[in-house]
């Protein structure tokens, strides 16, 4: 019993640290959708700073810790948010994962570099290496107390517990009982709605990152006595604490916190009672990753099968329609030059490095399959490399020929790939990335610790093959052979992409549900992707090992795989050629930098981390950055596709687009003038002009796809028009963000419900009405809300939710309300109630732009009506002039000359 108590108590120490890290992960994730792989690196950086300031400069422990946790770490979080995370929130998931992997290595290197510079400047710093038994905040050595037989605590443990408890209480207070906390929770719940409510989600995200960073810093300072100054250990610690974040589903801070504590205890209990596994080398080492893997499988919510396309939109094909020569000519020429260079200009050293680059290119090509084609992030590629090479080496030591051994090794890797693919059937995105990472660590710590497979630290010799007269023992010969192989694989992958199988893969990537509906097996496709990629990685691995002439189990670790992914994605993962560029850069760059730029070992690593910054701007990688930008520019400057001739078009020609000469009519609250807008080269609005006046309801009607929601988004500032003007109160508002416009009084009630489902009714109201008296007035008016004010808004019925969204507006009427289908999915009785509220708003002076698909009901409340068809206003006039057949025609998209004339008179204003 004392054993058990002891295990639980001391498990709570690592548990507390896990909890701090996991909470930070959840905070930053919910604020910007980023899983921060570099969270542990932040902790390390603070531990390093604490060590230098406290031990080397002699600063007192507690103030130093406070300074780091309360000032330095939040500052770092703020800076990174401004520089990177904010932009990354808007790019695809792969780029997000990779950018923070870059930071994971860059931040520790930055810290060490600063120490190096300080040392050169003569500051009394201590080396960051070989520091053991470091003091923490408390007394050093730690004071210990024996509670009962076999159960003791020491001062470091006590400090960790107490601090963590205080932080937990503080976080609870902050999030539950302050306006800032309320906003933070709102941003977690629905980021875009927060913007529409006039709160800057960017600023809130900065706050979340600062808090997150502070928590990492705190964990770092507290963990110093335990982990020392090993960046590697801090990162491993972070991966384990990711389990707790998974338990909290990356959204619930209390769950993540509790999960962290439980994780520490569970890990300790397993370590304490795992004597059953003594025969299995590596089992105890692997316990945290077993828990992580199991947690991911059990806890991760099943991914939505639809809509992943939005997460990782494909880049524009800037070479579409180009000839074969344009597409491949430069690459073929490059390859030929490289082959010639091997035998003419390169010295033996550079030949070797180039051959190495080509070998690693083969491995990198495997990323273009699983991540490029399949949009799945695999962090286990290094496992396939090691697995294949070990198997091949084992067979070669038994006298197998090179080709046979390579084939079997490749198959073994493919088999491993199929195994790793199993979680992919259930998981996606960052959960899948973490699951593959957990498997990679499990392979390192258990599978590759198997004596007969790894052959101790000696590993297996993989002699370079000799085929008849071709002796690959010569680096140049190996280089050319690898070049041929790489070219063949690139050609094969390009052919695969254009084959039916490749199209099926792309279909599964962008819309699994639709792919399933058209008879593509998602399971088979995902398995195939992983198997193929693993096989390719394995084959590349054997070739790489044969460049090294040996494979040992520690040559390519899970961490290597992480770095590889970052290197490939930084170059671009969508085209196989880019992987080759990545491989060559990976091999050449360190030597070029060492020769021509700097001797410091840290600077190249920091530069590599900056690739993450570049990804924030060019998520498709540096290889394509210039071409993609040029392509975007070309598309946006090319004229829109020709449209059916209409009077509106002739008017556009009269006035230069975007000219500021337009003056709004006098009592207009919101004016859209000649708006042309669309999404990434797909135009939707072709010159929409609308005016909403104070105290009037303008109903915007139109069929599906007419551009109604796009009009709303332009009006609210969520979408910037290509040309045209948005005017508020007669002033140009084109450059104003949604937040700004909302603060100026232009509110958008988006399609669906404009509420925060995870917040209570009272909290939803508080966001709009900070004063209690205002809220009380709302409750008086809507007793149904008053009775359930502490209930989560998500549990209300659709009608009640819509009432909740509108109720606070009645108390404080906005200048302009843009309501996108407020009656969507509501019962007719509720629709009447909603429209009654809208009329009330109009009477209070609000200008309403009401978008509806169903015309019948809205005609009862609208003052004026505009028809939107095919991206332009086909008719606009007072309700009284609305005729049934005109309505029908508008919906059918039929445009007649007479209506066109009407449009002109009405749109140009009285």
């Amino acid at each position: 019993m004392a054993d058990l108590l002891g295990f639980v108590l001391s498990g709570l120490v690592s548990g507390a640290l896990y909890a701090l890290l996991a909470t930070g992960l959840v905070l930053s994730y919910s604020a910007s959708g980023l899983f921060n792989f570099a969270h542990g690196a932040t902790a390390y950086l603070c531990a390093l700073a604490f060590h230098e300031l406290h031990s080397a400069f002699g600063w007192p422990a507690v103030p130093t810790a406070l300074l780091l946790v309360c000032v330095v770490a939040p500052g770092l979080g703020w800076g990174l948010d401004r520089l990177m995370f904010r932009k990354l929130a808007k790019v695809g998931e792969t780029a997000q994962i990779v950018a923070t992997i870059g930071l994971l290595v860059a931040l520790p290197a930055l810290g060490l570099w600063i120490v190096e510079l300080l040392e050169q400047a003569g500051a009394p710093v201590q080396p960051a290496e070989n520091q053991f038994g470091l003091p923490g905040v408390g007394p050093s050595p730690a004071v210990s107390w024996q509670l009962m037989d076999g159960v003791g605590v020491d001062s470091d443990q006590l400090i960790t517990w107490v601090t963590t408890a205080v932080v937990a209480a503080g976080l609870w207070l902050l999030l539950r009982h302050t306006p800032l906390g309320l906003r933070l929770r709102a941003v977690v719940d629905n980021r875009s709605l927060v913007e529409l409510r006039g709160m800057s989600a960017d600023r809130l995200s900065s706050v979340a990152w600062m808090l997150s960073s502070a928590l990492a810093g705190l964990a770092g300072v507290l963990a110093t006595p335990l982990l020392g100054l090993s960046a590697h250990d801090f990162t491993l610690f972070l991966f384990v604490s990711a389990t707790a974040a998974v338990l909290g589903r990356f959204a619930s801070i209390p769950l993540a916190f509790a999960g962290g504590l439980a994780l520490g205890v569970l890990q300790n209990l397993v370590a304490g009672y795992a004597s059953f596994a003594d025969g299995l080398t590596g089992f105890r080492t692997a316990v945290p990753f077993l828990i992580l893997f199991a947690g991911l499988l059990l806890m991760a919510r099943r991914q939505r099968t639809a809509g992943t396309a939005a997460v990782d939109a494909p880049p524009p094909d800037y070479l579409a329609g180009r000839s074969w020569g344009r597409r491949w000519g430069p690459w073929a020429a490059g390859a030929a030059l490289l082959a010639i260079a091997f035998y003419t200009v390169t010295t033996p050293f550079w030949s070797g490095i180039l051959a190495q680059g080509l070998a690693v290119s083969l491995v990198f090509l495997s990323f273009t399959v699983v991540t490029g084609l399949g949009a799945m992030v695999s962090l286990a590629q290094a496992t396939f490399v090691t697995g294949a090479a070990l198997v091949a080496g084992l067979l070669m030591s038994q006298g197998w020929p090179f080709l046979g051994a390579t084939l079997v090794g490749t198959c073994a890797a493919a088999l491993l790939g199929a195994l790793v693919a199993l979680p992919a059937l259930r998981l996606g995105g960052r959960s899948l990335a973490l699951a593959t990472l957990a498997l990679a660590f499990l392979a390192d710590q258990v599978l590759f610790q198997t004596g007969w497979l790894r052959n101790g630290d000696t590993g297996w010799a993989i002699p370079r093959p000799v085929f008849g007269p071709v002796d690959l023992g010569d680096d140049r010969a190996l280089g050319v052979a690898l070049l041929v192989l790489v070219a063949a694989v690139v050609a094969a992958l390009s052919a695969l992409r254009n084959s039916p199988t490749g199209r099926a893969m792309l279909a599964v990537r962008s819309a699994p549900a639709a792919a399933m509906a058209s008879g593509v097996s998602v399971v088979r496709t995902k398995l195939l992707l992983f198997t193929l990629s693993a096989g390719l990685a394995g084959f590349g691995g054997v070739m790489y090992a044969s460049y090294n002439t040996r494979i040992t189990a520690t040559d390519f670790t899970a961490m290597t795989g992480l770095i590889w992914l970052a290197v490939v994605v930084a170059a671009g993962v969508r085209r196989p050629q880019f992987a080759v560029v990545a491989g060559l850069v990976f091999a050449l760059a360190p030597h070029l930098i060492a020769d021509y730029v700097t001797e410091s070992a840290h600077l190249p690593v920091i530069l590599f981390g900056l690739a993450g910054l570049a990804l924030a701007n060019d998520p498709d990688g540096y290889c394509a950055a210039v071409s993609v930008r040029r392509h975007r520019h070309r598309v946006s400057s090319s004229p829109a596709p020709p449209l059916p001739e209409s009077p509106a078009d002739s008017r556009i020609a009269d006035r230069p687009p975007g000219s500021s000469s337009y003056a709004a009519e006098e009592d207009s609250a919101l004016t859209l003038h000649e708006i042309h807008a669309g999404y990434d080269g797909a135009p939707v609005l072709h010159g929409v002009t609308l005016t909403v006046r104070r105290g009037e309801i303008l109903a915007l009607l139109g069929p599906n796809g007419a551009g109604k929601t796009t009009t709303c988004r332009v009006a609210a500032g969520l979408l910037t028009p290509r040309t045209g003007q948005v005017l508020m109160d007669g002033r140009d508002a084109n450059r104003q963000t949604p937040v700004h416009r909302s603060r100026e009084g232009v509110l958008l009630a988006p399609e669906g419900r404009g509420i925060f489902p995870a917040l209570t009714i009272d909290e939803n109201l508080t966001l709009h009405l900070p004063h209690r008296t205002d809220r009380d007035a709302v409750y008086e008016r809507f007793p149904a809300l008053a009775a359930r004010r502490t209930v989560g808004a998500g549990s209300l019925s659709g009608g009640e939710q819509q009432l909740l969204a509108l109720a606070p507006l009645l108390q404080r009427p906005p200048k302009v309300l843009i309501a996108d289908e407020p009656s969507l999915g509501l019962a007719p009785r509720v629709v009447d109630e909603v429209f009654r509220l809208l009329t009330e708003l109009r009477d209070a002076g609000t200008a309403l732009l009401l978008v509806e698909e169903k015309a019948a009901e809205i005609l009862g409340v609208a003052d004026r009506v505009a028809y939107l068809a095919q991206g332009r206003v086909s008719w606009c006039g007072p309700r009284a002039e609305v005729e049934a057949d005109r309505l029908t025609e508008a919906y059918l998209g039929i445009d007649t000359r007479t209506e066109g004339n009407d449009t002109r008179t009405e749109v140009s204003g009285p």
Partner: protein
Amino acid sequence: MPRRNRTRTFAAAAALLLAATACNSAATSASGGDKGGSARGVSDDSIKVGGIVSMTTSSGYSKRDTDLGAKARYDRANAEGGVNGRKIDYLGAEDDGQNPAKNLAAARKLVQQDKVFAISPMSSVTFSGADFLNKEQVPTFGWGTVPQFCGPEYIYGFTGCLVPMPGGTLTQAWQKGLAEVMGGARGKSVAILANDNDAGTFAIRTYKQGFAAAGFDVTYAKAVVPATSTPSDWSAYTKEILRSDGGKAPDAVVSVMQTPYNIGLFTALKRTGYQGVLTDPTDYDPGLLAKSTSRKALDGVHVLLTFEPFESDSARMKQFKADIRKAAGKDVPLNMHMMTGYMSADLFLAIAEKAGRDLTTASFQEAAKGFKDKGTLVGDRELPMGQKESFGCGALVQLKNGRYEVSSPYRCYEPIPFK
């Protein structure tokens, strides 16, 4: 271009390239050793020597000072007139960052670009450049803790090969030293603890046999401590250890783990009131005395070292300290990495001296065969025996009141066969 033509063109180009490779590779596969009497990196008045050392690492463990140790030894050699009239041109150590790819790249750079005659020191946990160096016939000297120092013709450990090979021998320095400290091995129980990975399992296998052969009663020998990060809680391990000798605590606890683990384990054992002998083979680092936590954790611990302790007052140790001070330009705390660099350089110099004025790879290898000397900082050296087994010398020092004291003086022991 139509698709079929494309494929054909591609295949033809590939075949052509491979054919060209064939013609050339036959003519160029000569190894980089000696050609016509002059050796790579050897001029009339100098010998070019490089080094490979793990300096920057992500694990916070660095062997940086190895470079200083080597420099100190070469500086003295040059001050004394060099080797057979040639000065040592030591290029300094390349940093391999404990990264296998960088280790091989560093070896290639030193040989192919800098054209060194030899590499000394090479000290890293990874040695993927070994095959390349051996093939290119580059004499390489370093810390023989990895198996690449055991076997390859051109690679030498400065204390011999420290990885026991089945069929080879096991050194008895630690066991005999401990027996001396404990007043004999007979009837004394020891518990051995290692990390939960393949290396730990192998260590348990060798030390279990070694301690049993020396007469100890091995009551506990397990590779169970998680290998990736230090446990925050040691009670699970200490409980088992303290009950291992028939319910009692063993007379000695032997840790074959790294410093952070030892600090945790020994602290936990002491808190339970354990009074027996603690010992490990890694914690001889005067730098550890600077921190109160490590000083307290390691107090009383007997540490094995395979070279003469810094506490010794022999003439050669005084020379070592003077050389280091001179190379560093000031008094620096000594550590085992300096010794690694210093003695790797020393072994290279000794063999080069023996090879004579006509220095080529062949003459160097010839001199190495049957090389033998006595009474150095690493005891009695003998080649090629040292490429198969350890020189077998060692001492134990005990940390007492904040300083190391020799508890079993440096001497060489007869090894036993490793089964």
